[in-house]
């Protein structure tokens, strides 16, 4: 499960996917490593 691989709750993964939560920098790096993508390829600042 993704939540286990990122060491967060399922609720947190859901909030990330639906855009209700911007991850902390350490969590963004863990996501980046897991998906083997650069952070800016995964997250859009949406300015």
């Amino acid at each position: 499960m993704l939540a286990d691989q990122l060491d967060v709750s399922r609720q947190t993964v859901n909030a990330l996917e639906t855009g209700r939560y911007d991850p902390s920098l350490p969590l963004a790096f863990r996501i980046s490593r897991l998906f083997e993508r650069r952070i800016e390829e995964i997250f859009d600042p949406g300015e």
Partner: protein
Amino acid sequence: MTSDLDSSGNSRGDRARTRAYLRDFLPGIGGYLVVLALVVRFGNLDGSSPWRFLWAVLPVIPALWCLRAVARHIGRIDDYQQRLLLKGIGVGFGVAMITAVTVGFLGIAGMDTRLAGWIIFAAGMLGWVVGAAVSAKR
């Protein structure tokens, strides 16, 4: 993005954190209930002995263990969960303070406020629960 990784169940980490919380919390609430039963049975709170004041505050000691459990739980959960929980606690604190001021003024106006502590406690807890639920929905 996570179709192969998603599941509707709680993660292993969620379950481990819940177990750890219960391991911390249950001795506190169990101790509280035991001490409360002893106080009600032997405390003679309606009497005139000065010891009754010591008996009356004894349940607070195991209740402090519950506070420790919540503090440790906050340290274990992730950033997003901390945010939700602390928002809820913030709302609960605000509700408790407003209730305290309200009950205080009602007391000045002559209302019987012997149950003020319990009213403030209930309002704060209710505010915490509702605040956390509303935060989670947003």
